[in-house]
């Protein structure tokens, strides 16, 4: 059976060019960046070259890039690091209700340490209102953290506007750009961003590398203490192969991004148009302002896990915000934050496209999906209409 991967928001395959760039850094150029000998210096050079390439993609200075192991680590470092370094200025932190769990849980942990956390709601499209942020910022607010592109519903938040407000109010602004880097342009200066998280494996790089951009002058405490790598902000032996791969992925993204975004948006719109022909199908997230590769739907009267497994049995890999697919047995907090009812959140389907998605893949999905939904509704007590 032909297999079609439409879950690029979960992770992406490593681009063969990336794998090739990494290859010599395992057994040949294996040095530790902290070593003074030639092996170490070779690794150090690769690290600093990678830092330049990665910085270039977001218009940052290389010295403003800290490499970490994952977006989860970067987000933990951003929230906890800023909170710890700035607690003398205030204890209030603002996040949105649709953040990734690693931001939500970091904020929850900070709450336990005595910080005051406000979770800003979103509209029915999952959009955060900059006005709302403005109203919520208090005297003792030290950090605002808002996701750039939603990992679930694809909505792109008004980051530049929110950043401007934070700048005016003298509050630090962090954005989780794990889903958006390499897909849509990011300029940390124009968008008034103080801290930014991005991840390698969401953009055809390997797992195990991510970054935290920290604007020059922003005070932040490390959460990993040790040998003082990454300018003391992230002690750990540096994962050179992964970082070299991440840099290569950024280099490729810089070249391919604009063309690829147009191509994917066209396929995405074809998919959305086709799926919405199915009775009882709804689009989740913003109809226009969304990541070029993300489509998210809800289907009345059926449950997402059943849908995902049926699609998988037909060779198509997608994901769902249904409770039954999660370890917690609760539907997606993102869908619920948009005001969606539980039963509709249970019937959600996320389709995320990528570099190797072809029009024929979308056509195949559009062919099998109505049949699968019909079959599941036949079994459902609610599906008879």
């Amino acid at each position, binding site marked *: 059976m032909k297999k079609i991967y439409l879950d690029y928001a979960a992770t992406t395959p490593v681009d063969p060019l990336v794998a090739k760039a990494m290859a010599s850094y395992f057994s040949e150029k294996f040095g530790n960046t902290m070593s003074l000998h030639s092996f170490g210096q070779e690794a150090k050079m690769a690290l600093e070259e990678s830092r330049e390439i990665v910085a270039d993609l977001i218009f940052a200075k290389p010295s403003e890039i800290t490499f970490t192991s994952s977006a989860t680590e970067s987000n933990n470092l951003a929230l906890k690091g800023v909170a710890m370094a700035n607690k003398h200025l205030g204890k209030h932190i603002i996040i949105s209700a649709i953040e990734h769990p690693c931001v939500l849980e970091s904020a929850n942990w900070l709450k336990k340490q005595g910080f005051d956390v406000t979770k800003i709601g979103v509209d029915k499209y999952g959009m955060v209102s900059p006005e709302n942020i403005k109203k919520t910022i208090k005297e003792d607010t030290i950090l605002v953290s808002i996701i750039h592109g939603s990992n679930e519903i694809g909505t792109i938040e008004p980051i530049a506007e929110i950043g401007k407000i934070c700048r005016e109010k003298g509050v630090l602004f962090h954005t989780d750009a794990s889903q958006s880097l390499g897909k849509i342009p990011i300029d940390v200066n124009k968008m008034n961003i103080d801290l930014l998280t991005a991840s390698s494996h969401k953009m055809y790089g390997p797992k195990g590398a991510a970054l935290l951009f920290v604007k020059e002058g922003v005070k932040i405490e490390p959460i990993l203490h040790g040998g003082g790598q990454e300018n003391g902000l992230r002690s750990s032996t540096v994962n050179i192969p992964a970082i070299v791969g991440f840099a290569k992925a950024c280099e490729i993204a810089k070249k391919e991004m604009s063309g690829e975004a147009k191509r994917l948006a066209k396929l995405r719109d074809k998919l959305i148009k086709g799926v919405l022909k199915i009775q009882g199908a709804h689009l989740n997230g913003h109809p226009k302002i969304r990541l070029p590769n993300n489509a998210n739907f809800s289907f009345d009267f059926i*449950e997402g*896990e059943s849908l995902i*497994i049926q699609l998988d049995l037909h060779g198509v890999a997608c994901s769902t915000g249904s409770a039954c697919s999660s370890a917690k047995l609760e539907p997606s907090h993102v869908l619920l934050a948009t005001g969606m009812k539980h039963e509709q959140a249970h019937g959600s389907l996320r389709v995320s496209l990528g570099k190797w998605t072809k029009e024929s893949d979308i056509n195949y999905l559009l062919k099998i999906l109505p049949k699968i939904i019909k079959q599941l509704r036949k*079994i*459902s*007590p*609610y*599906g008879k209409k």
Partner: protein
Amino acid sequence: MEKNNTCAGIYTKKVIETFKNPHNYGKIKNADGIGKVGNIVCGDVMWLYIKVAKNKKKEDFIKDVKFETFGCVAAISTSSMITDLVKGKTIKEALKITKDNIVESLGGLPKIKYHCSVLAIDALAEAIFDYLKKNKMPIPKELEDRHKKAKRERGILEKRYKNRAE
């Protein structure tokens, strides 16, 4: 536990086969008993219909059984499995079926999905309760208790589904 090499890897082959080709789904018109249960935590809803007749020994037995389920793979396969397990059984025998019987018949279920097998036996108990009550027949104490519990859970669920857009 035998694993299937797909993203359905958490389920046994038997669960996936049952999910792909569920038995006895749909409604029974003029059913003798209907059991409607829902598990609010997972969002699974299961309706079970039974048709009862007398066997040669003049005992009540389940002549036909059908289900309708809104739920995950585990909910759909446990629904199908319970219909297979009770079809042709006397009421007495049917009430002896446990969640473990269902889980075993499916070759196992992930722990987090065990509640789906509970849902299936609850649906059956409710359908039998409904039949006994309609026909003013004596209801065993244990069944009465199970009914009370299911009723409580249904109350919570109905509140949630009241505003359902249909």
